[in-house]
């Protein structure tokens, strides 16, 4: 974030190889999803900041926020954000393990990519479960 004089990427920094000539592989999908989910949860983080500001702003603002979150589109968006966050989390763990020089074999990387997808679905379901979303409604 330091204020340097960055130069645009005019071919001097490597980008992904030409996708057209590469056989599809799950690690490619995991790689680009790491970036895409990063952008998604960046917007989600700004949402969390607004939620916190609403909490500080008093009951009326907080209730407005809760109404939006608890509406069906709000719940769908919240779930997708949770999926994105959990995937990005798993991808981050993979990257830290790679930084330690482990898990870099293509087969291992493929397996951990699939594990990340599984985690991205199961962890949010778990969060909704502990939030009581699947409990029988109170009588």
């Amino acid at each position, binding site marked *: *974030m330091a*204020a340097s004089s*960055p*130069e*645009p990427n005019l071919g001097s920094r490597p980008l992904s190889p030409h996708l057209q000539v590469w056989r599809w592989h799950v690690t490619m999908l995991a790689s680009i999803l790491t970036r895409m989910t990063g952008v998604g*949860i*960046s917007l989600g*983080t700004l949402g969390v900041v607004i939620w916190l500001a609403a*909490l*500080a702003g008093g009951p009326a603002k907080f209730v407005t926020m809760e109404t939006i979150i608890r509406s069906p589109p709000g719940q769908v968006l919240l779930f997708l954000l949770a999926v994105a966050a959990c995937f990005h989390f798993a991808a981050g763990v993979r990257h830290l393990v790679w930084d330690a020089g482990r898990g870099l074999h293509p087969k291992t990387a493929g397996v951990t990519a699939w594990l990340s997808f599984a985690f991205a679905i199961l962890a949010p379901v778990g969060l909704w479960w502990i939030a009581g979303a699947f409990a029988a409604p109170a009588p």
Partner: protein
Amino acid sequence: MSDGGDKHGTGHFIAERVTSIALMLLTPWFLISIALLDGGYDGARAWAAEPVNALGLGVFLVMTLYHMALGVRVILEDYIFDRDTMRVLLGINTFVTLTAAAVSVYALYSISFGG
């Protein structure tokens, strides 16, 4: 003239990893805490006013926002090919993340001490 680097790559690499290691702990804590929140406004307010939680939220949000600024920066550097556009977007990135950090800290201050 450009070799494609801005001479801050090592610092960026380290900062991205330091924040990600911190977020390995803070993110599960935040998500589980939010999932367990109960009692509407009063419940959320009481939870966020607990010193441990207020501090945790502050550290979580500042770490997240910094990590986010680093990540968005790389994406802009990779995919925006016009120098002026890129510099404006990098400026917006810094501005938005720092503003969000200031809003977070003020909100937490207000919740803890605002009465």
